[in-house]
């Protein structure tokens, strides 16, 4: 039987390509042929006497089902050998996995054994199915999905159960109210997860007089950096304070273009900015010394350190908060106070 066979339409290269695709997907005889084939499929299934047997639509014997002595027997034996080989390889590789696991446990060998056993087992199953199982298509009737109106009405009636429930309006109202209260009680549990965002989001991290120290805790001195270099610094004794990290840059003092109000924030050309990008919170860790630009490695926003870290490119469009600095009598750098704005990414209540 051949109903499932492909019919190749013709009509130039597009037709050929389309035929290849639709042949792949379906095959494409006309509607008329389709009806005829359905009728034939129906006839073919009448012979079956088992109750509710599936109606066979098309059936081809397994390619490897040739009888003994047939011309394809050699091929059949070859196919048998291949499937046998696949399963034996799977078996062997599984044992290999066990041996490797209990001896060297080498990563690549172990993974290789796992891949080999599963690949050959999978191939064995697929080939077994393809060569030694009947290629059979069955046809089935699809049930209509929407129920007949009578059934729909009956279920509605039984669900509403008008004749079985008294005081429905009053009590249902109260039950709904109770459920809403349950929901409110449940939702309030979420408050346990959320400490109030304020003042944490608008923190006072740096206090006047805080010394700037490195991650290792060493204080930073007026001679620590050369012009054009940079360093990550933190408030002394509070190195892991949220959002406190600062990028310290030293620039040529003559180039500074800070707003007038910040004129004394940069002793000896030392500029300190929040290291948390105002765009998406990454660490603004790259510095291009010739251009005096800080760059965020996540989305390549750039900030001009000479003008108060105004954004000059990329998706950020708010400046990095600046930390006002002064040098004490010993030359150590200290904060004059907190950042010029809350550091980090923006939010609704950000002033």
């Amino acid at each position, binding site marked *: 039987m051949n109903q*499932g066979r492909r*019919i190749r339409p013709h*009509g130039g290269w597009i*037709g050929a390509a389309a035929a290849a695709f*639709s042949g*792949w*997907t379906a*095959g*494409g005889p*006309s*509607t008329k042929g*389709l009806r005829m084939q*359905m009728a034939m*499929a129906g006839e073919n299934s009448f012979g079956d006497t088992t109750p509710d047997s*599936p109606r066979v639509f098309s059936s081809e014997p397994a390619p490897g089902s040739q009888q003994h002595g047939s011309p394809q027997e050699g091929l059949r034996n070859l196919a048998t050998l291949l499937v046998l080989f696949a399963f034996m390889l799977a078996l062997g590789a599984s044992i290999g996995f066990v041996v490797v*696991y209990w001896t060297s446990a080498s*990563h690549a060998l172990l*993974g*290789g054994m796992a*891949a080999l056993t*599963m690949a050959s087992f*999978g*191939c*064995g*199953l*697929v080939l077994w199915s*393809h060569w030694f199982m009947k*290629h*059979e*298509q*069955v*046809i*089935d009737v*699809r049930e209509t*999905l929407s129920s007949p109106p009578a059934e729909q009405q009956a279920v509605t009636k039984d669900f509403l159960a008008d004749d079985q429930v008294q005081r429905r309006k009053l009590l249902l109202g109260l039950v709904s109210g109770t459920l809403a209260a349950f929901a409110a009680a449940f939702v309030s549990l*979420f408050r346990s997860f*959320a*400490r*109030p965002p304020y003042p*944490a*989001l608008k*923190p006072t991290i740096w206090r006047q007089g805080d010394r700037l120290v*490195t991650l290792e805790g060493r204080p930073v001195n007026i001679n620590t950096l050369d012009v054009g270099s940079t360093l990550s610094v933190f408030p002394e004794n509070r190195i892991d304070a949220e959002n406190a*990290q600062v990028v310290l840059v030293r620039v040529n003092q003559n180039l500074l273009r800070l707003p007038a109000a910040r004129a004394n924030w940069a002793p000896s050309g030392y500029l300190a900015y929040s*290291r948390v990008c105002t*765009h998406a919170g*990454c*660490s603004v*860790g790259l510095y291009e010394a010739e251009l005096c630009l800080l760059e965020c490695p996540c989305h390549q*926003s750039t900030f001009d350190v000479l003008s108060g870290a105004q954004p000059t*490119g990329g*998706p*950020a*469009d*708010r400046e990095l908060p600046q930390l006002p600095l002064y040098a004490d009598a010993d030359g150590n750098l200290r904060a004059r106070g907190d950042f010029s704005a809350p550091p980090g*990414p*923006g*939010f*609704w*209540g950000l002033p």
Partner: protein
Amino acid sequence: MIREIGDWFDARLHLAKFVRKALNHAFPDHWSFMLGEIALYSFVFLVVSGVFLAMFFNGSAVQQIYHGSYKALDGVSVSAAYQSVLHISFDVRAGLLIRQMHHWAALIFLAAIVMHLSRIFLTAAYRRPREINWMIGLTLLLLALANGFFGYSLADDLLSAAGVRIAYSVLLSIPVVGSWLTFAFFGGVVPTDATIPRMYALHIFVIPAVLAALIGLHLAIIWKQRHTNYPGPGRTDRTIVGSRMWPSYAAKSVGLCFLVFAVIAFLGAFVQIDPVWIYGPDNPAAILPNAQPDWYLGWMEGVLRLFPAAHVHVGHFLIPEIFFPGVLFPALLFLLLYTFPFLERWFILDDERTHHILLLPYQQPLTTAFGCALFMFLLVLFFSGSDDVIAVATGNSVVAIRTILRILVFVAPAATFFIAYAACRLARRHIAPQAAPSVADD
């Protein structure tokens, strides 16, 4: 023997009829129907390998000094989570293999979901009666995206910590409720010790449970509605043609399952993934290498980079620049996808009939062209997520590459739309006489 066991159960559960129906259930056969199966089998693998990893992973961000077998980090302050990932990778027997396979399986899971979704879209399988399964499928995609991100973030390495910061900033940008939402989820200003335990609970328990339940529902609905058929002989909106489930289809499908596992095992064994010991632990003073997310979040990374820098003030309040690409864009994208079956009905085809026969892509030129354009749009965004890498590789500046991509992100989808539309029309003209029509309500 098998008969006796069967009888034993049948005498208690009256199973024979149901089991026989299941064995003879017609499953339409086509390579494109395997994509969903691949997703299913990778999910199974993720659960099994995830259980193994959960035995060793320590979901805590408490800092400790590392003194493990990876000598290059000896004496460095790391989180307990990061330490346990190094322990899995270097000390647990087969630990590195399972961890890498778990990560690869996640990438394959998402790739299979996306390809499955594309197949559904291009063959119009989302039409009535399958709108529910279309929406369940999209929910599965969203959950898979979230869980992939959480899993990636649990290692608490330098790279994934940057991802957490970005997610924090995105959530924080939501007007009015953003800061409360962010604190409810992350537990404070990141980096904070509260975040990892929460992501861990979601990653190994809440989301997998919901995924498993929705996958079960997805399959149950397929069982109830029966699978779609490509057009062909015997296939109408009232009939279904396919292989019997047993034995040949089952053998092939289980075979496919093992082949999926084999690919995962091969990648896990021979292709290194997420070597967190090279990235190093999260550290406020460190400089991040070229950061790229896992592939399935590339489009998000791209839109964050391409979107113009523009914040909005509403009175005294701020809507930060990241809100538009980070929240609004994906929300609109998924809204579009969720409502697509209905939008198509209203704007493209006024067709409310029940369909069980799939359309071939050329049979619905407008929808196909739209889908291809959307895919191209996301593809350009995906590459935009690596614009710095492209800039370095091609010797251009990031600014130049970004300008090109900003043009391309509109031009390429538009061109794709017209090309796909023209190709469909052309194909329809050449194939239509031969192709079996979709026989609706025959």
